[in-house]
């Protein structure tokens, strides 16, 4: 095994300062990218998707639960799967209620959606003790439209992460894929603003990176473009009403 070289504090500091310069450059690159993401246009959703949740059938608008924004984590859990994918499960088991309540303070509701029938979702939730809103898109095109289900019978030319993925046609290829999609509500209309897949989700599991994916961003005064929310906050990572 090869461990880092052992050096004096002064030598370490010199190396650390050089890395710090690169880290700051990356933070600035990320800020610019986040602003460009918020400048994306959006697409009105004209399809009436019907999900099933704990209280029966629900439309996409219902999933907002009063917020202006909705984030959907596409959890890999196919209709004939015994259990959801282990990686998705790992991420969900790390989501404590304060993540959801914190997002709500910034007008954003977070839910999970899988293609497994709701009975199976309810069972998985119960087994793991997860207290997250989780809906079934079993009988709708939702998962196909957002390119996270690619089972062979329904999809001739599988696409994932905005490109053709012919290897997803193989016998052993997964039928369900992970992703995250963001929606914005304006009056009665719902718009799709963003979807991210694959490594685009690596850094998602705290509130700032999550909010950075949405059209309204962190809703802080320093962000570009301006004027997305009525009362932007200061640049403080607190999440109270």
């Amino acid at each position: 095994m090869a461990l880092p070289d052992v050096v004096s504090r002064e030598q370490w500091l010199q190396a650390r300062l050089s890395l710090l310069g690169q880290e700051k450059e990356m933070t600035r690159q990320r800020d610019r990218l986040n602003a460009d993401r918020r400048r994306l246009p959006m697409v009105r959703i004209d399809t009436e998707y019907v999900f099933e949740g704990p209280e029966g059938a629900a439309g996409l608008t219902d999933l907002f639960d009063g917020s202006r924004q909705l984030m959907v984590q596409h959890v890999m859990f196919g209709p004939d799967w015994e259990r959801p994918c282990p990686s998705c499960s790992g991420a969900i088991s790390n989501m404590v209620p304060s993540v959801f309540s914190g997002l709500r303070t910034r007008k954003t509701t977070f839910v999970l959606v899988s293609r497994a029938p709701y009975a199976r979702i309810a069972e998985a939730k119960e087994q793991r003790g997860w207290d997250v809103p989780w809906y079934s898109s079993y009988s709708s095109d939702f998962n196909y439209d957002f390119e996270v289900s690619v089972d062979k019978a329904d999809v001739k030319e599988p696409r994932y992460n905005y490109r053709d993925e012919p290897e997803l046609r193989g016998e052993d290829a997964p039928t369900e894929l992970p992703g995250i999609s963001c929606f914005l509500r304006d009056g009665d209309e719902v718009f799709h603003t963003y979807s991210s897949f694959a490594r685009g989700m690596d850094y998602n599991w705290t509130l700032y990176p999550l909010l950075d994916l949405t059209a309204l961003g962190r809703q802080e005064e320093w962000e570009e473009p301006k004027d997305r929310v009525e009362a932007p906050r200061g640049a403080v990572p607190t999440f109270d009403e």
Partner: protein
Amino acid sequence: MALPDVASSGEWRKARLELLAHEKELTRHQTAINAERRRLPMVRIDKKYVFEGPDGPVELKDLFGDSRQLIIQHVMLGHDWDDACPGCTAGIDELAPGHLRHLSSRDTAFALVSRAPFAKIAEVKERKGWFTPWYSAYGTDFNYDFQVSLDESRGQVEYNYRAEPGLLGGDRSSEMSGMSCFLRDGANVFHTYSTYARGTEFLGNTYTFLDMTALGRQEDWEEPKDRVPAVRGGDPTFTD
């Protein structure tokens, strides 16, 4: 208020693909920086720091438990403060037992350290219902050496690797936030990394924590090679 322009799905897709290229560039940039971080040298800790925890005094090496690595979140709570800083609080509120379990499955312990005496820490921890191990650095040089307590009378006015005298002052002690990583090799403990300010903003999931450490995610695709005896595949699962 200004909302995004409404576009057709074809127009949106074109804009999205353009952004995707930038996003991939950032992911690659992040991956390269993470490798650079693991290439940093490390410094042996020769000073004996004695912390106080729920079971009395402990040393830095004790904070590792059985793990090879230790991540310390420097929580802003001074001896004369009534409560932990709200930003630190929000971060700790979002920690799930799964984070600590997953880190531990990759040989990495996680602990909080503040300069307040342990009695105050125990009281705040109880009140907030936190489960993360939290130690007091009261009476040690630890917080000064790692630049998260500033005190002009001790000549320590640096934060994020530069002099920040503007952060001094006010009626109470000057505490700052940060994260520090340590590696154990036999009886020796080494400091590998510390990050402050916006450098801590994207931390929270198991990968982002592990990306700060000398051993990384411990997966077979990472550079530099050969840091752990048995590397895993590039798969975000965290079982022992």
